[in-house]
């Protein structure tokens, strides 16, 4: 197993963990954290491919991760603000009860 | 310690003394081991030096505070078991022994793991920040390209420890204090970083050694090119100082442990050794921030005048560090504590806009670096006006409607 494969397996596991959290947990905050984990897993991939990729001097992976970090920060801020708004509306943060957008 | 790129042999004997001492201790080891031994030695040296500095600092603080209030301060504890008092020099030792022997209380219902972990994490993180500060021409524990970023990354996590302490204590006051600490630290992280960004901009480097290197040289032959001696640098330094006071929970920003409102804040349920650890971490954090301030604004280990270069650089760093720490204590002795709304207002309505404007000033400074000597006064005047104008205007906004109070019934 090459190091790159190891890194990718690591990130796959992390991604699956995040996915499971999103699927199973009903607390909106934890779902959000699961999404963050998935985002992190993607970042891991970027770094791994940068490290073992064909043109590390170009630094695309690193640049992309920097942007992804900024987006993650924005996502967390907005997401948690949404959670707080949700809490204000229904006095809890259970995602299953937030069904106002039902078609 | 790993010597930086500078040629160690070019420096004087005094300058190389710490390195020589280290080599004398570890010179005999084979290569991979030697690196480990050197690193370990550096860590031990930092822990030893700054722990003793912490001990002396507590004493100094009490002495200075007492003197400001026209008291002599602690002067009883001297050499143990003798009659030598040494002006109270043994006080830190006595304090330490007292702390160690006190009963360690964990409240019922508290989260024992986190309650235990909080002071440890806090101390560990505080110690981590010392790794990137250049203590001398040849004394940099770790040479990092993103040293400043590392410093703040390590420092940012201290908030977490405070939160852990407050939450794990299962005490309303502790939790309130933790929330306050979070709000305060997040609020002041921003001006702190924004005050550092101009320095990074002008030095063109995120590494602490690079920043010190950018402050080399003399104007007119004797005025050091420290960043504090430029208009934007002065403004940055003052913002940095204010934010650093708040970041290290020092008076007048010691709201998280405001005893009149919150008993002792997140420290309420701590006693004995854990309390001592908190105390130590707090002082170490303050020292680290002061060290960073010295590095960023006061020229690091550089001598203030050209002919004073023969004094070893680490002595200069130490002197500057002590001076800055003294300023911290002095400020604590002078100002009363702010209210929580004043605290956040100061950060968001004053420091952050000021720091942003100052960033612009620094950019202007960088852009006008090529101006001819004839235009230098214009450059200085412009930058000074850009610094002073917003300060006055924002300050007026901050103090609008405030008058000296008159007490009718007091």
């Amino acid at each position, binding site marked *: 197993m090459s190091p790159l494969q190891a890194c990718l397996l690591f990130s796959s596991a992390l991604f699956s963990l995040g*996915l499971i959290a999103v699927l199973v947990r009903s607390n909106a905050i934890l779902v959000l954290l699961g999404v*963050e984990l998935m985002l992190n897993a993607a970042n891991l991939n970027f770094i791994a491919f940068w490290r073992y990729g064909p043109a590390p*001097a170009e630094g695309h992976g690193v*640049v992309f991760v920097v942007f992804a*970090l900024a987006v993650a920060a924005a996502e*967390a801020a907005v997401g948690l603000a949404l959670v707080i708004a949700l809490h204000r509306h229904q006095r809890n943060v259970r995602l299953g009860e937030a069904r106002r957008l039902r078609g | 310690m790993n010597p930086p790129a500078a040629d160690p042999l070019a420096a004087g004997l005094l300058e190389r003394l710490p390195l020589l001492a280290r080599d004398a201790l570890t010179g005999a080891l084979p290569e991979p081991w030697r690196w480990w031994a050197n690193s370990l030695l550096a860590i031990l040296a930092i822990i030893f030096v700054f722990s003793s500095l912490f001990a002396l600092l507590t004493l100094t603080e009490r002495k200075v505070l007492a003197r400001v209030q026209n008291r002599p301060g602690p002067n009883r504890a001297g050499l143990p078991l003798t009659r030598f008092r040494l002006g109270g020099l043994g006080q830190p030792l006595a304090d330490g022994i007292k702390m160690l022997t006190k009963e360690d209380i964990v409240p019922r219902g508290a989260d024992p793991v986190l309650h235990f972990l909080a002071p440890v994490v806090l101390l560990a993180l505080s110690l981590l920040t010392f790794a990137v500060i250049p203590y001398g021409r040849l004394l940099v524990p770790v040479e990092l390209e993103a040293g400043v970023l590392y410093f703040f990354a390590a420092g940012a*996590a201290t908030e977490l420890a405070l939160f852990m302490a407050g939450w794990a204590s299962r005490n309303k006051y502790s939790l309130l204090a933790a929330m306050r600490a979070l709000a305060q630290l997040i609020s002041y992280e921003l001006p702190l970083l924004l005050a550092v960004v101009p320095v990074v901009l002008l030095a063109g480097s995120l590494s602490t050694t690079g920043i010190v290197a950018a402050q080399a040289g003399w104007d007119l032959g004797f005025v050091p090119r420290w960043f504090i001696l430029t208009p934007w640098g002065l403004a940055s330094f003052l913002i940095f100082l204010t934010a650093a006071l708040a970041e290290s929970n020092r008076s007048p920003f010691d709201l998280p442990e405001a005893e009149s409102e919150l008993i002792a804040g997140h420290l309420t349920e701590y006693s004995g050794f854990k309390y001592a650890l908190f105390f130590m971490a707090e002082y170490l954090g303050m020292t680290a921030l002061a060290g960073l301030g010295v590095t960023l604004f006061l020229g690091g280990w550089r001598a203030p005048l050209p002919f004073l270069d023969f004094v070893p650089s680490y002595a200069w760093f130490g002197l500057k560090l002590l001076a800055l720490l003294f300023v911290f204590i002095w400020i604590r002795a002078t100002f009363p504590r702010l209210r929580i709304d004043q605290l956040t207002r100061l950060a968001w309505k004053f420091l952050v806009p000021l720091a942003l404007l100052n960033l612009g000033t620094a950019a202007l400074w960088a852009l006008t670096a090529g101006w001819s000597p004839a235009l230098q006064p214009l450059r200085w005047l412009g930058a000074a006006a850009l610094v002073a104008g917003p300060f006055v205007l924002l300050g007026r906004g901050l103090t609008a409607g405030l008058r000296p109070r008159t007490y009718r019934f007091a």
Partner: protein
Amino acid sequence: MTALAAIALLTLAAAAIALALRDLIHSALLLIASWVGIAAFYLWAGAEFVAFAQVLIYVGAISMVVLFAVLLTRPPTGPATREPSGRAVPGFLAGGAVLGLLAGAVLSSPLPAGTGAAPAFGVRELGLKLLGPHAGALLATAALLTVALLGAVVLAAARGKEDAS
């Protein structure tokens, strides 16, 4: 490889426990540990700047926001919310399926072995890249962050009419 294995194990363990715990504070703190693990991975891979940025952003900022959100939205009394158990098994099945797919894909793909040595890509190079070819994206990100923060403030602070009751 040993270091990578240790980092991966710790990170995954922290994340797994965090997502299984019922106490949100504990899970948030453990998640922070896993984020630190990811930062350690970046360090291991030689991306120094990204590692510190990860710590600064995740540990310094996002975790604080998470903790605030947890404290602000805790149920006033009573134990933590009970999970509806019906979703757990299919959830794990689906997660396992995705993991299996990904692992299969990773293991069956002919991946470049790489040079092995950490590439020389320091802060200066990163800065040149960010402000050179990627300056537009940087500006867009800055605008996104500003808008997101404003939006977050508006969302969290809004007092709609339906709340007045």
